[in-house]
């Protein structure tokens, strides 16, 4: 198998396995476990098999093109360091799978667990072997996401949900920071390729953007590795099933951060900023983590804080910027992975067997589970840095580095003491763990009788502890060469001389170790009794709980703050929105005028026609009156609106637009009837109710609106006047005027434009009309009048009462008398209007008129009948199917348009000529006229549909009230 394919397989297999696992049935425990185990094992083998090629080639790459133009390709890159991590991830992953098989209870949906687990493993492998920074970010975020799912696996308890959310939030933020940092690196280097980035360390360190880059990248690394001050998510992540903790907090998740620090060590390390930021965070995490760990009651809590502390140690080592420090850091990564994984598993076993992890409740378990106890003791001894165990070796190196002076500073001078202090704390909490769990007398109230776990649950621990022992005794023979390849792949030529010997003679580091061991032991002895009954958390720091602060901040920022901001930056009311729209539009129009020095053109009073002025005096009064009266006198406002419309018509006629005048007039009539139909459903509003109670605020708002109205009006006036007085440009109109008759076949150019030159506009326009009619219809189907409108209008009630009161009359006489004579005339007008509509339609192409006006005229004919005789009477006689008129109209228009395809011409190509008919003579026959027929039909349908649908509400109301009455009778 080539290296390429195996590299790809290492990524693909886990995800494929994850997909396979998710579709397994919920109870397929063994199948899922075997699948996961197999995948993990194969990955391990793949990784192991890589060693030779890594050894002789140094770097193995495999490139797959993904987004070349963005410089983001799937570049997989295996070198010694990546190899080391790949082995850790897949190896420990394999062990955790075995462990989990026995840990998870049959009730749990285990396949989902293993699916998430495999996906996480795949992402982790991706992080370590991706050779492109952005690709690394991709996998980085994936680890965050899948760790979120793993931590929240038992989502039925709230702590798991909170832990998961916090973990994802923090690490997600970090990942985004990382992305930003890498973008900047790409900006400097001109590529995201890891090799090129590693090669351009000096360039980056000397760039102005170095500090931002450093901060952003560290944000990513620290959040992931739970380094101070982002450490607090990790203890909350302990709500996860123990196998998850064992995996995430030993070899993988948290290691990703320090992995990245080491990976980019050649690029970013060695500067003053690096030393200070990384060193400070590392030292704080190291000491505080250890200190917090001592006072945890929960075993997993203790282990979590110790993880923070040990990662702090690694970070501190990397901060020093010395090659030897880096070596020690990498070495400790391995060691920590081994002993911490085994310790978590041991904690899990204890929890599993006793049902609790509270060290104050536990004790004397050695009698029940000697093997497990021994293993746990060895592991924690390694954690404490006891000689002959792997923890000791890296700890020694750490001490050696701590005393060596690098940059002269407080931090540097503090380093040795901090190192000893932290190590002493480590000894103390290790001692507490061992003593309080396995020794002392056995408490009475254990949930169940503890005993040794099944073999396969202990087996992984045995392997790991064995590793601790071997590495601790014969490092050179075991971990030595692998560590060396890893170190050289990171440090390259800068790789220093170092020895992994167990015994270096009586050196200061040795002395420091002894000091730490002794100090830790004493510290534990002093604290023993206190710890046996203290409440959870360290003294003095108990109040300051990172995650509570975090929660508070999150709620304040991401919820309350956001809601507040939304409420002040936005609105849900209509008037402010319209106000804003108008203001924005006004500014948009005014800004260019202002910027380019606008000259409105000189005012000319010449050609000022008194008649025209008089007409517009009428128009102005109407407009202002309508604006003034619309609130309290709707009918009045409606009439005034009509007046304004009338003046508009006259203006159209005055400036030679007869078609517009026609259309406007007809639309006026129909609109008036329409709004009147609607008026009946609006609430009664009388002036005296609300008049004069306007508050100052309301008055001010009114003045503001008035100002806006005046401003807009003035703006329109100025612009209109300016354009009208400028010399007109050469317009495309000349073409239309020239071709209208010769090629469009009509003398009424406007009409020819509408049905031919720009027939497509008309096409869309009638579609709008049709759609609106349908919408109106649909809406009114569900119309429900307001309570105060349900009963019939006052007038009708009064008149009915009057009729009923009189012996010589019966109900409805008044209205029938009222309409008796007028209705005769209105009926006889029906055919007249039809003929008139036909006339308007026929002449359209050559003279003012056309399908649209004809349609409205015909609609008016129908409406007149409804007015005269009422809905029922008309619909008993005439069956208008407006929807069909609409559909027919649209289809005709479309077919006429598509007809031209038959002759190979584009849509809507018109064809017109004079046809000689017997005894009629030559009559114009233009396909445009057919198109106009479609328009006509649609307009009739739409107009009638809208008005009649509205008119029908009255009947609907009657029917509804009748139904109500019946139901009342039934009740009575």
């Amino acid at each position: 198998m080539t290296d390429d394919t195996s590299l790809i397989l290492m990524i693909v297999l886990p995800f494929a396995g994850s997909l396979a696992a998710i579709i397994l049935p919920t109870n397929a425990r063994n199948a899922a476990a075997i699948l996961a185990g197999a995948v993990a094992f194969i990955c391990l083998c793949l990784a192991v098999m890589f060693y030779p090629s890594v050894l002789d080639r140094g770097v193995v790459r495999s490139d797959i093109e993904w987004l070349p133009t963005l410089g983001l390709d799937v570049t997989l890159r295996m070198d010694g360091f990546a190899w080391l991590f790949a082995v850790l991830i897949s190896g420990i992953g394999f062990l955790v799978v075995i462990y989990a098989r026995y840990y998870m209870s049959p009730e749990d949906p285990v396949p989902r667990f293993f699916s998430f687990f495999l996906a996480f493993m795949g992402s982790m492998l991706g992080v370590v072997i991706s050779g492109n920074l952005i690709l690394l970010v991709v996998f980085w975020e994936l680890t965050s996401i899948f760790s979120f799912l793993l931590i929240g696996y038992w989502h039925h308890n709230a702590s798991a949900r909170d832990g998961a959310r916090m973990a994802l939030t923090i690490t997600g933020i970090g990942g985004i920071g990382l992305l930003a940092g890498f973008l900047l690196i790409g900006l400097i280097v001109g590529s995201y390729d890891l090799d090129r980035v590693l090669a351009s360390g000096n360039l980056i360190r000397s760039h102005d953007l170095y500090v931002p880059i450093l901060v952003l990248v560290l944000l990513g690394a620290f959040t992931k590795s739970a380094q101070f001050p982002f450490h607090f998510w990790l203890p909350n992540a302990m709500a996860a099933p123990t196998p998850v903790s064992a995996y995430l907090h030993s070899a993988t998740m948290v290691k990703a951060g320090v992995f990245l620090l080491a990976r980019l060590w050649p690029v970013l390390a060695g500067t003053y900023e690096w030393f200070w930021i990384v060193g400070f965070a590392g030292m704080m995490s190291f000491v505080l983590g250890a200190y917090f760990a001592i006072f945890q009651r929960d075993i997993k809590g203790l282990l979590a804080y110790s993880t923070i502390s040990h990662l702090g140690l690694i970070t501190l080592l990397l901060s020093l910027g010395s090659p030897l420090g880096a070596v020690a850091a990498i070495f400790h990564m391995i060691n920590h992975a081994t002993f911490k994984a085994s310790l978590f598993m041991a904690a899990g076993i204890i929890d599993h067997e006793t049902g609790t992890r509270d060290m104050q409740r536990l004790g004397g378990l050695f009698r029940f589970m000697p093997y497990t106890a021994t293993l746990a003791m060895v592991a924690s001894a390694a954690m404490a840095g006891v000689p002959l165990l792997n923890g000791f070796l890296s700890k020694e190196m750490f001490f050696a580095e701590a005393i060596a002076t690098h940059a002269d500073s407080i931090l540097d001078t503090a380093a040795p003491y901090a190192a000893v202090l932290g190590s002493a704390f480590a000894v103390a909490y290790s001692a507490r763990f061992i003593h309080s769990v396995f020794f002392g007398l056995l408490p009475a109230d254990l949930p169940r009788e503890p005993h040794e776990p099944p073999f396969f649950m202990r087996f992984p621990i045995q392997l790991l502890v064995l590793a601790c022992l071997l590495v601790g005794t014969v490092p050179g023979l075991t971990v030595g060469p692998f560590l060396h390849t890893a170190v050289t792949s990171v440090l390259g030529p800068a790789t220093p001389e170092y020895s992994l010997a167990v015994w270096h003679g009586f050196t200061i580091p040795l002395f420091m170790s002894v000091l730490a061991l002794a100090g830790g032991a004493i510290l534990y002895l002093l604290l023993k009794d206190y710890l046996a009954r203290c409440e959870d958390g360290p003294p003095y720091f108990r109040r300051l709980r990172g995650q509570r602060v975090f929660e508070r901040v999150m709620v304040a920022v991401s919820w309350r703050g956001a809601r507040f901001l939304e409420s002040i930056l936005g609105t849900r009311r209509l008037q402010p929105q319209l106000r804003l729209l108008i203001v924005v539009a006004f500014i948009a129009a005014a800004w260019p005028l202002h910027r380019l020095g606008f000259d409105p053109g000189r005012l000319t009073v010449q050609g000022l026609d008194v008649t025209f002025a008089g007409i517009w005096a009428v128009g102005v009064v109407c407009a202002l009156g309508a604006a003034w009266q619309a609130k309290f006198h709707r009918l009045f406002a409606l009439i005034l609106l009509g007046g304004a419309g009338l003046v508009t018509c006259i203006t159209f006629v005055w400036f030679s637009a007869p078609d517009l005048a026609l259309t406007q007039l007809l639309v006026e009539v129909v609109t008036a009837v329409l709004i009147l139909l609607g008026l009946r459903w609006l609430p009664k509003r009388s002036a005296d109710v609300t008049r004069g109670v306007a508050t100052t605020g309301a008055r001010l708002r009114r003045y503001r609106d008035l100002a806006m109205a005046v401003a807009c009006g003035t703006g329109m006036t100025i612009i209109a006047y300016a354009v009208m007085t400028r010399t007109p440009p050469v317009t495309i109109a000349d073409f239309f005027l020239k071709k209208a008759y010769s090629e469009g076949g009509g003398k009424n150019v406007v009409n020819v434009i509408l049905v031919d030159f720009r027939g497509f506009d008309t096409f869309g326009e009638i579609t709008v009309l049709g759609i609106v009619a349908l919408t109106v219809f649909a809406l009114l189907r569900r119309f429900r009048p307001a309570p105060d409108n349900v009963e019939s209008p006052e007038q009708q009630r009064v008149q009915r009462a009057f009729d009923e009161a009189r012996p010589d009359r019966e109900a409805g006489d008044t209205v029938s008398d009222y309409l008796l004579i007028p209705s005769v005339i209105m009926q006889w007008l029906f055919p007249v209007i039809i003929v008139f509509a036909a006339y308007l339609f026929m002449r359209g192409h050559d003279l003012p008129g056309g399908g649209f006006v004809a349609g409205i005229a015909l609609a008016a004919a129908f409406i007149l009948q409804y007015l005269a005789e009422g809905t029922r009477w008309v619909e008993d006689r005439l069956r208008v199917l407006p929807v069909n008129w609409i559909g027919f109209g649209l289809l005709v228009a479309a077919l006429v348009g598509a007809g031209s395809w038959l002759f190979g011409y584009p849509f809507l190509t018109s064809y017109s000529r004079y046809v000689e008919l017997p005894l009629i003579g030559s009559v114009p026959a233009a396909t445009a006229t057919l198109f106009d027929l479609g328009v006509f039909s649609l307009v009739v349908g739409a107009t009638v549909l809208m008005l009649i649908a509205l008119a029908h509400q009255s009947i609907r109301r009657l029917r509804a009230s009748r139904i109500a009455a019946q139901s009342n009778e039934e009740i009575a």
Partner: protein
Amino acid sequence: MTGLGDLPVWAALLTGFFLILGSALTLLGSVGLLRFRSFYERIHAPTLGTTWGTGGVLIASIIFHSVLQSKPVLHEILIALFVTVTTPVSLMLLARAALYRDRSEGNDGVPPFEMAAESQDEQPRSSGV
């Protein structure tokens, strides 16, 4: 621009006469609309415009166009017809509605509903314009 030049003077004079007559009558009607006191008096005024006011303008238009195009242009007759037919409709409906409103509000000066043959005792109201 229009061929007004070749219009015989007599036609022009006739056109002008009827035109001004018609519009003057219309104006008078509107003045009446403005000056009459009660609604029932005002309702008489616009009919000046809708009868001979319109008539005058229409006659002018007929003469003018017929002479100008030297062929009878009579379609103005339709306007006359339509106006004569439609105006009554609106006025009748309006008057009845006004009557209803006045009655229901109990305003004086409006006859009661009673329509007995002998109920001619409605007091005529005296008023200037």
